[in-house]
Structures are given as C-alpha cells and as structure tokens.
C-alpha cells in the first residue's frame, strides 16, 4: 500500500512549499491561543494520526492486571513496511467517545497498558511512537486507590531503559505528569499549536497568581508552547500544521509525522541498544537550570560502566 518513490518525493516538495508559507501565521498565535487550539474538539488525536500514517494497524488492549483503559490506545502498525508499536492518549472524536475515553485522562491501568506495549515492543525489537494528548492523569478516587503516582513513576523509570527507539509527538495537550507518563523517549517533537506544561494555565493562575481568571496571562508566563520548549532545548523540533490548525488538514501534519518517523527510525534503529539508552538518559540527565557543581558527565559514564545489562 506504500506509494511509489516519485509520489513520495512530490509530496515532500508540496509539503515544503506549503510549509514555507505558513511560518508567519503560527508566529502570531499567542500562548493562550495555542492552549485553546490544542484542546479544541475536532483536533486530530492519536487514533487519527495512526490511521493516516499506517498501512495496517491492529489495536491491542489491556494491562493484563486490572483493565483496559480506553483513554490510552496501544497497538502495532505497519508504516512503510516497518512494524511499529504505537502508544497514545485518546480523547475520542465526539462527546460520546469523549466520555468513554474519559477525555483522554488515564487511570493507572492506562499507564500500565502503555508499559506493557512498550515492553512487548522492546522484546521484539519494534520501535515505539508515542502520541501525547491529555489534560493530565485522572484525578479520581480509583486512580489514587490503584496508584496513579506509582504507575507514572514506573513508566518514567522503565521508558528510560527501553532498548528500542522511542519517538514522542506532543500532538495536542501535554498535561503534566499524565503526559510525561508516556513522554520519555529519544526524540521529542511538538506540533506547532501543541502545549506542554507542568500544570494547566488555570491551575497556575489560581495557585501562583491567586486568580483563576488570569489563565491567559499564566499561559504566557509558563512558556508552554512548542517554540518555548524548542528554545529551552526540551524538544528536538516543531511539526508544522496548516495555518488554521491541524484539524483543517490532518493528513498534512500526518504526512510530516510519518516522514519524521521514517527518517528517525532509519537512524536510531541502526544504533546499538546501549548507545540508544545512554543517549536518552544523558539528555534527560542534563535538564535543569542551577548554579553550582555541574560535573555530572563523567559520573554518568562511570555509572553506566557499572550497570549490569547495558555494558
């Protein structure tokens, strides 16, 4: 089902031409506009991109422990003849689905389902692509009872060590720990109008600005847009959307995502697993902004030298 090479090339050229014309519009959008756009009903979600990207996709359900969290989609797709494991938040595309998907807010079993998918991918040398699009983990009674903190924590730890490439795309809302729970990887991309933050602007406004109505101002202060995070060197690159936003032309963005995946996998799949993990952890290890001792690089190498499975 893959297109012949000439057509693929033509797509690329078309793409580049369109991209050139888009820059200004996105530049003018405020942080708050991005917040609104990232949350908009009808914005393409993980399931949409998966179906646009893959020749075939087979969804796999369940965490093998407690349940199947509809707010998290996992499965295996074929993309350009390569098997890839997909993991993504799922909000649903209409009100009814929004409800069954809990508006993309996972319970612990969602994170455990994601981890199971990742471990299976690792076992069978399948690279992993994650799509982040969640307001956050679900702050409910059951989530606390079943250890939402533990589930996210475990994912942060395990994903750091997974011995296959992990590409992460923040396609809509990147909400706090709930987003990070499937957000540790080798390459991190953000869609142009996506956001990623430690707390919602509303939360930031009510706690730090002591006024929930100042969310717009908070969004600006928090520096949560793709451009902000690119400047901070947290993400590797920004994925374009058409000027009105990804919902106007999902396949435009899907196409760039697909090309990005194929390009990165060609590079990352060739690396020995231990190099992959070392690079991933080095990147994470270096994030932080402080004065004082910073001679961590040699220490990290030494620690790596003492690990059991990664030598």
């Amino acid at each position, binding site marked *: 089902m893959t297109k012949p090479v000439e057509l693929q090339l033509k797509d690329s050229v078309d793409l580049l031409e369109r991209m050139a014309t888009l820059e200004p519009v996105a530049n003018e959008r405020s942080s708050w506009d991005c917040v609104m756009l990232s949350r908009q009903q009808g914005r393409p979600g993980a399931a949409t991109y998966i179906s646009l990207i893959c020749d075939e996709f087979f969804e796999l359900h369940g965490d093998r422990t407690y349940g199947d969290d509809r707010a998290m989609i996992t499965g295996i797709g074929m993309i350009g003849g390569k098997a890839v494991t997909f993991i993504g938040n799922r909000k649903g595309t209409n009100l009814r689905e929004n409800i069954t998907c809990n508006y993309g807010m996972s319970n612990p079993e969602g994170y455990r389902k994601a981890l199971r998918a990742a471990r299976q991918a690792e076992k069978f040398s399948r690279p992993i692509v994650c799509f982040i699009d969640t307001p956050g*983990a679900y702050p409910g009674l059951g989530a606390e009872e079943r250890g939402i903190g533990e589930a*996210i*924590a475990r994912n*942060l730890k395990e994903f750091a060590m997974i011995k296959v490439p992990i590409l992460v795309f923040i396609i809509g809302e990147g909400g706090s720990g709930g987003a990070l729970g499937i957000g540790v990887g080798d390459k991190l991309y953000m869609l142009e109008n996506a956001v990623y933050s430690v707390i919602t602007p509303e939360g930031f406004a009510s706690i730090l600005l002591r006024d929930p109505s100042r969310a717009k101002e908070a969004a600006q202060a*928090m520096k949560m847009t793709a451009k902000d995070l690119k400047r901070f060197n947290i993400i590797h690159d920004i994925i374009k959307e058409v000027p009105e936003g990804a919902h106007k032309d999902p396949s435009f963005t899907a196409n760039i995502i697909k090309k990005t995946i194929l390009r990165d996998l060609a590079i990352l799949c060739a690396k020995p697993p231990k190099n992959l993990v070392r690079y991933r952890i080095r990147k994470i290890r270096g994030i932080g902004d402080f004065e004082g001792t910073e001679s961590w690089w040699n220490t990290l190498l030494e620690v790596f030298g*003492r690990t059991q499975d990664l030598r």
Partner: protein
Amino acid sequence: MEATRACPACHQQSPAATWEHSLMVCPHCGHHDRLEAALRIAQIADPGSFREFGADLRSRNPIDLAGYDEKLMQHRKQSSMNEAVVTGNCTIEGELAVVAVMSFDFMGGSMGSVVGEKITQAMFEGALEKKAVIIFTASGGARMQEGIFSLMQMAKTASAAALLEQTVVPLFIVLTHPTTGGVTASFAMLGDVILAEPGALIGFAGPRVIEGTIGQQLPEGFQTAEFQLEKGFVDAIVSRDRLRSTLAFLIRTHKGTCHD
C-alpha cells in the same frame, strides 16, 4: 517555667524537652510532627558521620518568572536551608548509606532543578560507591515556578533510579507527611522498599483536586500512609523510634546472600 509545645493533631501541650526526646512524636496521640532536615539526620545517622554534598547548588529562574528570585531568597532566609533537600553520606548503625532528606518547610518541598539534581546526585553517589540510598520525601510536588524544567525533574530522578537499579544498589524510600504530586509520581514510588511514617498524607493529586473531580468530600483516611499500605504501595509503616534500626536491618539484608 518550662517551655511547652502544642500538638498540631490533638492540641495537647507537652514540654519541649519531651517532644525532642520523643523524636517530635506527640506523647499523647502519637502524631508524627514534621521534622527539619537537620533533626531528621541527627535521628538517623550515626553521630558525627554525616557529610553533606551538593550544598552549593542554587536555583536559577529558568522561565524568568516574576517574583521567583525573591521567593527563593526569602525561603533561604526563613528556613536556614538553601533548598528543599539536604543530601550527604553517613553511616547508620555502622552501615554506609547515602541520605537525602526533603523538607516541606522550603517552598512546600517542591521539586525544581536543584532538588532534582541533588536527588540524582545522591543516587549516582550510591551507584558508584555501592552504598544504599535512603530518601526521606516531603513534598507538595513539582516546583511550577520553574515551568517545564520542574516537570522534567520527574523524568530525571526516575531515570537515575533506573540506573541505580541496574547497578543493584538498593533504594529505600521513607514517605513522610506530606508527599504528593510530582515527587509521588517519580522517585518516591520507586524504592525497592518503601516505608512510611504513620498518618502521613501520600498521593498524587491533592485532596482538594480530587474532591473537585468527584464533587464530594473524600472518605476518612483517604491517601494516608495506612491507606497506601492497604492499597499495596507501601511496604511497611514504621514509627519514628524504629526507623533507624529498620533502615539498618534493610541495608544489611540487601547485601546479597548468594553469589557475592
């Protein structure tokens, strides 16, 4: 007349000396009061054995947030600490250990770049020197004043825990009141053994946020240490007077019986 101090839980007065003697546990109701980091270290480490490291680290203001520098300055003055965690080497009943003690008094024990860095350094110290790592948590979560950098400290400390695991050095966590948010969702839940002090509040989402979700009050005892024990996330609840010997026992029993 002797100085007295009221218990925040049962409100009974006890002499200051009694509080100190009981390791800041209320002699009337057993309430485990919050401890300053220095006092915690004095209770756990063998006398004179503690050697601090990482004390020179200072937060910057990575997202240029108005007021954050002043806030930090103010907390440094008030608390006589530089940041929300103290890290160092020590011995416990003669057993070598790396210890990190968080303090809720410093900006709610929130985790920014410095806390994340010091926790990471503590784990790496343990990994390199083959010393058990013990972390006393107390935190309201990520330090949102540092924006995305605070969120990333969760990944950073968790990946340090992953490397520590790879070097087969034990990580022991002691959850103290309160431990919530980004700290719960990272290293706090990654201990080989997780202990908790009686009555400590432990959870991810804050109680008020959950009440907002469910539209009603939380059940009695929700998110307490006892609740977490029942739910399977805490290995044991240990009262403060038995913490020291328990940690020493754990260090001794994690050295390997076979093939070592």
